[in-house]
Structure formats: C-alpha cells, structure tokens
C-alpha cells in the first residue's frame, strides 16, 4: 500500500495532535484531581490522627491521674507508714512483714502496679511485693527514692528501662512518713513541712510496667490500618528517644534514637515545639502524615502517624484504575480511528486504482480510434478531388495528394520545395515575379491573423506544357500551410465569353437606345413641323374662304355658298384631326408621372372641363364612391374627359341622359373603373374596333368626332399597365371599363 497522499497525511497528523492534546488534558486534569484528593485525604487523615492522639493522650492522662491517685492514697495512709516503720524497727519480725504485706494486699490488690519495693530510710531493699518478684532496682529508681525521702513528696519517674533492659518501668516513689504532729491524718496527707521532725520510714517504690497498659494503649490503633501507629518520644539531649515499641521496628522501646535536628521528623518537630503541618518523614525515612501532641504533665510527645503510602494507596489504586480505563479507552479509540482511517484510505486507493485502470483503457481505446481516424483522414486527403499540398515551415512540400500530381503532372521528385514550384510552374520570369509577390502578400495577410490565404488566380504551366488558370488559396495552420488548387480555366473562359457577350449586348443596347432617342427626336421634330406647318395652310384656306363669304357671300347663289361652307368645314375638320393626331402621338412620348390620385376629384375636374358640352343638357349624374389610384394626373384626366365626353355626346338623344361613374369589383390586383351611359350604345360585334385609331362606328353626320378619343384612352391606360374594354347594346347604352394596377401605397 503506497503512502497516503499529503492531504491525508496532514489529516492523520492533525488527528494525532488532537489525540495527544486530549490525552494531555485528561492526564493533567486527572493529576490535579488526584492531588486534590490526596490533599483531602491528608487533611482528613490528619484530623483523624489528631483525634486519635487526643483520645490516647486523654487516656494516658487519665491513667496517670489514676495511678497518682493510687499512689497518693498510699501516701496518705498513715497505717502503711507505721507498719513500714515497724518493719524498720523489727526487721526480722515476720509478723510485721505480714502486717505490711497485708496492707499492701489491701492497697495494691487489683492495681496495675507490677510490684512494689520497700526501701528503708537508708535505701536498702526490705521488701518485695508480691513475694518472689524481681528485686532489681535501677539507678534512676534509687535516685528517685532518694529524692522522695528527702522531699517527703511523691516522685514519679519517667519511663526507664529495667536492669536487664527488656522492661520499661514507670516508678511511683511514695515516701512513707510518720507525722508527729497530731493525729490528724488529713494534715499528713496535706504534706506538712518535714522540718517538724516527722520520721521517714522509707519509700515504697511502685513499679508500673509500661508494657502492661501504657504501651498497649499507645500501640493499639482504633481502626484497621497497616501502617498507622502512635508513639511516644521524649527529648534526651540532642536526640529524640523513642519510648515505646515501634510498630515497624522491634526492639526500639527506650532504644531508638534520632537526631533532634531532623527537619522532617514529626517527633523531632514536636519536641522542638514546631507546628507540624501534617507531613513528614518518620524514623524509617518513610513519608507519613502525622499529628503531634504533647502529653500534659509529662515530657512526652505523642505522635500519631500513618504512612502516606497507606493513605494514598486507595487513591492510587483508584487513579490507577481510572487511568488505566481512560488510557484503555483512548488507545481503543485511537486504534479504532486508525483502523477506520486505514480502511478509508485503502478504499480510496482502491477506487483510485480502479479509476486509473479505466482511464488507461479509455486512453488506449481513444488512441486506437485516433489512429484509425488519422489513417482515414490521410486517405481522404490523398484521394481528395482537389489538388492540395502541405507546406511546412521550411518551404518543403511535405505532402501533396494524387490529384495534384494528376492535374499538374509534377511528382514528388519534380517539386520537392516551393522553389522548384516557382521555377517549373511559372516559366516566365516576369510573371513568376508577380506570382511570387502576390503569393507572399496573401500569406502575410493570413499570418497576420486572418488564417485564410486569399484566393488569387494564377496561370500555371503544367509539366506537359499546358497552361491552366488555377485559383490558389489555402489556410495557415500555425507556421505551416495547407494549399488548395482549383482549376478555373474553364470558368475563366466562360467568364471571358460572358464579359464579351455582355459588352456586345451593352453596345447593342446603347446603339438601340441611341437609335430610339434619335427616332424620338425625329418624331418630336415631325410633330412640331406638323403642328406648325400643316395648320398654317389650313388656316389660310379657312380664313380666305370666310373672307370670301363675308365679302361676296350675299351675292352668291345658294349652291356656291354651300360649297364655301363645305370648304370651311373640311378645313376645320382637318384642323381637329391634326390636333388629335398630335395629342395622340404626344401621349406616347411623354413621361408617366405616377401619383396617388383621388378619382372623385379628377372626375369633377373633367366634368367642369366639359362644361360647354353639358350646357343646356339634362344630364343625371350618378357618381359612386371612387378609390384612389396611382396614375399620371394629366393623362388620367385625358382618359376621363374622353370617356365622359363620349358619354355626353352619345346620350344627346336622351332626355334625361343618365351617366354613371363607378368602381367595379376587380380582383385584388387591379382597380376597375367604369363609365356607363344610357345613350345610343353600339353593336358588340364591332366592339374591338372601338379602340382603334380613327375607327368609328357612327357616321360623321350623326356624331362628330375623329375616332381618336378612345384610341387615346387605350394608349394611356396601356401605358399604365391596365386594360380597356367596353360593353354595349344598340340603343340601350354602353359601359366603358378601364383598369389600373393597384399598387400598394
């Protein structure tokens, strides 16, 4: 398993750190708590020890008091003193001995004193009670006896070892004094001045074995404890003397000594008078909790102590237990976390592995596909129907396809680089120069960011000498070029032909236009001529005929006058014809002005223009709503005038004449207008003749007219792109229609 990635490792370290901190925290907390508990234990132990010490001390004091009482009782009893005196006086008297012993029995029966020793006033041992007990007497005892004799007071010795060293005694030395003064026993008891010649009979040394009561008292412990003890010490010089048998060391009673200077020895501290705060190091060198109390009326100090170890043992056990549990838990959790993390890691890595494997597989597949695609594309390039080549940055023709070779005939050997291409394909040096410049320019432009090499037509010379027009272009791919060649020879030829053809066409069109313009001009001139030159003679004919009539008219015969009229009439008619013809021809030549016209208004204008014709006539006009149209206003007015004039003319026999103008429903493409009248109508058979020039369907005598009006209408409407037609019935009126294309405004 490979190392976990850095992020994971960091994570692990993080966890570890947290764990460490946690553990430290717990440990610290535990420690403080433990210490606190220790202190508590210590203080409570101390209190307990004090209590025990106090208790024991109280007991010792009581016991001592009792013994003192006992001793004082003996001291106060004169009988014993008397008997003692008797013994002194009659040492061999068995009877006195018996008496004394009897007294001793009485006094000492059941008392804790081990033995009593009677000493005479010379400190000679006279009696031992009980009989047979040891007669040993230490130096201390003797000294005390001496003092008692002297002072005639009770003397209590301190604890001291026996002759053989194995026993420890406390002596109560009672002087036996016979008081001379009175018989007042109370006075004796009061300890009267020995200078009143009292007689000392001796002393009675009451020996108290410490082992009997005192030591057991000291040494017992109220509660079950493995190390606790109380002990008594007293100062001897610069040393601490241990008075009783110590628990932890045998043979120490009155034996063991320690230096008084011991800094932490509770006994020493107590003897020095220092306050013992509780802790210390005892005679064994073991740490203890101690309570030290002086025993009143004695030089003793009692030390109640217990080993710290014992005190703390339960705590330690507890701490250990808890500590172990916590540690175990921490370890367990650490382990669990580690395991989980490991597992997670493993899973992660496995997943990664799987992914990698898959990726590799995909990559391989992709590569395969790519290679196949490459091969396909390469094949396509090679087989492409357009000559192509690939120029790398050294100008080498790195690749050219089959068509290239086919079309130009240059193989790989012929044209390895661009240089050969220029040489072979452009044999003419001047043209080659031009081609190179154009090519370089196009490539420069492409390099500047346009990518496409602009297509330019070049005349390429093939291997077999053919010249072909080729459009060469391509694109830039980084620093390399893909160049395509498109043979445009045919196209160019076609273009040329087209251009020539167009040119010719244009020429022809221009010629025709010129011819047209010329003919138009001729027509203009012609019309001008006609209008002027033709009219003049007409005018003359008319004029002179009139003059003739005016001058000779009255004198002429009717026939001659008639002939004159005919001459004038014809001349006038001719004039009208000329006018109409001129107008008709003008119709074709003027430009068409397309305007939006309101037909209704135009109709009104036309009617007004024909005012003279309408004069005196009874005409009923039916003017329907008319739309607006796109047309030349002047020309369209001409149309309306002509149509209305016709209507007016041909309804002359009618009274009233009914002329209707309206709009017929045409398809959406054109607007159809009609003029209907109730006039003489016409024969539909000849309907198409109506609109012909100079065509008339009525004789001149019936209705004047030149027959140009409708021809004009047709011409004008035709120029607008519309149609003209008519319906009629002989004697039942006629309707003339014209249509105009409706331009969407």
């Amino acid at each position, binding site marked *: 398993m490979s190392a976990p990635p850095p992020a994971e490792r960091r994570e692990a370290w993080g966890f570890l750190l947290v764990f460490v901190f946690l553990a430290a925290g717990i440990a610290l907390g535990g420690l403080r708590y433990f210490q606190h508990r220790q202190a508590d234990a210590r203080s409570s132990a101390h209190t307990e020890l004090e209590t025990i010490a106090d208790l024991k001390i109280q007991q010792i004091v009581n016991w001592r008091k009792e013994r003192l009482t006992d001793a004082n009782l003996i001291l106060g009893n004169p009988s014993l003193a008397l008997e003692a005196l008797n013994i002194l006086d009659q040492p061999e008297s068995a009877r006195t001995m018996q008496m004394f012993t009897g007294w001793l029995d009485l006094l000492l029966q059941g008392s804790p004193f081990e033995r009593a020793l009677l000493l005479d006033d010379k400190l000679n041992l006279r009696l031992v009670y009980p009989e047979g007990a040891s007669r040993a007497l230490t130096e201390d005892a003797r000294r005390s006896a001496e003092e008692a004799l002297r002072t005639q007071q009770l003397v209590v010795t301190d604890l001291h070892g026996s002759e053989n060293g194995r026993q420890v005694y406390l002596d109560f030395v009672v002087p036996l004094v016979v008081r001379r003064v009175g018989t007042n026993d109370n006075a004796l008891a009061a300890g009267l001045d020995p200078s009143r010649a009292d007689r000392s009979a001796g002393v009675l040394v009451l020996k108290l074995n410490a082992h009997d009561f005192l030591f057991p008292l000291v040494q017992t412990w109220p509660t079950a404890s493995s190390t606790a003890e109380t002990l008594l010490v007293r100062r001897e010089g610069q040393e601490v003397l241990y008075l009783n048998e110590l628990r932890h060391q045998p043979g120490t009673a009155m034996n063991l000594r320690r230096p008084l200077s011991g800094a932490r020895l509770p006994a020493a501290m107590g003897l020095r008078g220092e306050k013992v705060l509780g802790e210390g190091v005892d005679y064994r060198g073991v740490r203890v909790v101690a309570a030290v109390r002086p025993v009143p009326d004695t030089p003793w100090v009692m030390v109640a102590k217990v080993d710290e170890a014992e005190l703390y043992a339960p705590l330690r056990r507890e701490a250990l237990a808890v500590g172990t549990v916590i540690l175990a838990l921490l370890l367990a959790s650490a382990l669990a976390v580690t395991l989980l993390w490991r597992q997670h890691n493993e899973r992660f890595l496995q997943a990664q592995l799987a992914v990698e494997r898959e990726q590799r597989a995909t990559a391989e597949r992709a590569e395969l596909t790519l290679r196949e695609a490459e091969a396909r594309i390469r094949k396509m390039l090679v087989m492409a129907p357009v000559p192509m080549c690939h120029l790398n940055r050294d100008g080498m023709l790195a690749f050219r396809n089959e068509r290239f070779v086919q079309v130009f005939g240059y193989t790989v050997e012929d044209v390895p680089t661009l240089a050969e291409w220029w040489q072979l394909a452009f044999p003419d040096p001047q043209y080659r120069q031009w081609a190179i410049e154009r090519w370089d320019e196009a490539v420069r432009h492409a390099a500047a960011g346009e990518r496409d090499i602009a297509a330019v037509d070049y005349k390429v010379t093939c291997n077999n000498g053919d010249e072909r027009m080729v459009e060469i272009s391509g694109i830039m791919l980084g620093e390399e070029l893909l160049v395509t060649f498109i043979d445009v020879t045919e196209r160019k030829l076609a273009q040329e032909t087209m251009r020539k053809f167009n040119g010719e066409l244009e020429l022809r069109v221009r010629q025709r236009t010129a011819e047209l313009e010329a003919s138009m001009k001729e027509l203009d001139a012609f019309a001008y001529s006609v209008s002027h030159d033709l009219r003049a003679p007409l*005018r*003359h004919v008319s004029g002179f005929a009139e003059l003739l009539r005016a001058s000779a008219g009255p004198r002429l015969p009717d026939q001659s006058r008639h002939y004159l009229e005919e001459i004038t009439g014809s001349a006038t008619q001719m004039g009208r014809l000329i006018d109409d013809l001129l107008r008709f021809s003008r119709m074709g030549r003027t430009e068409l002005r397309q305007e939006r016209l309101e037909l209704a208004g135009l109709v009104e204008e036309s009617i007004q223009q024909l005012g003279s014709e309408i004069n005196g006539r009874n005409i009923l006009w039916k003017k329907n709503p008319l739309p607006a149209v796109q047309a030349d206003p002047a020309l369209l007015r001409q149309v309306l005038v002509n149509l209305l004039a016709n209507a007016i003319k041909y309804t002359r026999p009618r009274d009233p004449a009914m002329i209707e103008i309206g709009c017929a429903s045409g398809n959406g493409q054109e607007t159809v207008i009609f003029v209907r009248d109730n006039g003489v109508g016409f024969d539909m058979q000849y309907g198409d003749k109506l609109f012909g020039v100079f065509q008339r369907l009525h004789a001149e005598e019936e209705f004047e007219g030149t027959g140009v009006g409708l021809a004009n209408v047709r011409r004008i409407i035709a120029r607008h792109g519309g149609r003209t037609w008519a319906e009629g019935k002989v004697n039942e009126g006629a309707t003339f229609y014209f249509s105009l294309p409706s331009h969407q405004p």
Partner: protein
Amino acid sequence: MTLKRMLLVEDNDRDLELTLAALEEFHLANAVDVARDGVEALDYLYVRGQFADRPPGQPIVVLLDIKMPRLNGREVLRRIKADPQFKHLPVVMFTSSREEPDLAECYLLGVNAYVVKPVDFLQFAAAVKQVGAFWGLLNELPSPPELP
C-alpha cells in the same frame, strides 16, 4: 407724341393677309406696322435699317409669330426682353404651334401672352380682335424711357 401702334411680325403672306383682314374688321388695321421676320422686327424696334425713318415711338404690343426665317420668334422675344429699352414691351406670341416646349420657353423668356391661331377663321378673327382690343385699348403701359 406716341401713336398707339402695334407691331405685327409675320412671315407668311396669307397669314398676314388674314390677320390684317381681321384687324380691318375692327378698324385696327391702320394702327399696325408689319415686319416680315425677326430681323426686320428688331430693325423696327431699334429704328434702323429699313425702318430708320419711321416715326418715333414704341408699339403698344408686339404680335410675334414663332416660325420665321432668319431670326425666329423666340429669338426676337429673348432679345426684346433682354434689352432694358424694350423689356417692358408687351409681347404676344401669335402662332400656330401649341407645342409644349414652345409654350414653356416663351413664358420663361417672359412673354406676356401666348395665343394659338385657330384654324377656324371666325375664331381667328375673334382672337385677333380680343388681343388687339386688350393690348391696344385696355392695357396700360408705363411711360417709355426716352429713345436714344
């Protein structure tokens, strides 16, 4: 000092005769001077050439035909209107041409009236009469500037 005379510029004999006959009917023939073409018209106005000895004074109206040899009516009109001396002279085109170009150009040149000669003589006569009456009798002219 100034006689009320009209200048008639007409090249055609017949037209001339007819016009004069018409004017005669209204007794205006005596007040008419005739020039046979454009050149003569100008000669008359400038009192030179064959008209050098004509009585002084400017005509109250010039009746001008268009189609004439040498100088045509339009030219005459242009020159008349170009010359400060004659600019004020009323000029009436009296012609058989109703061609739009003629009309337009004459008005552009500042012609005072354009009358087309009717073919019908009666109408012709009426037109002449109206023109003559109007320009000869009715129309007011400013005082002509002094002739050089």
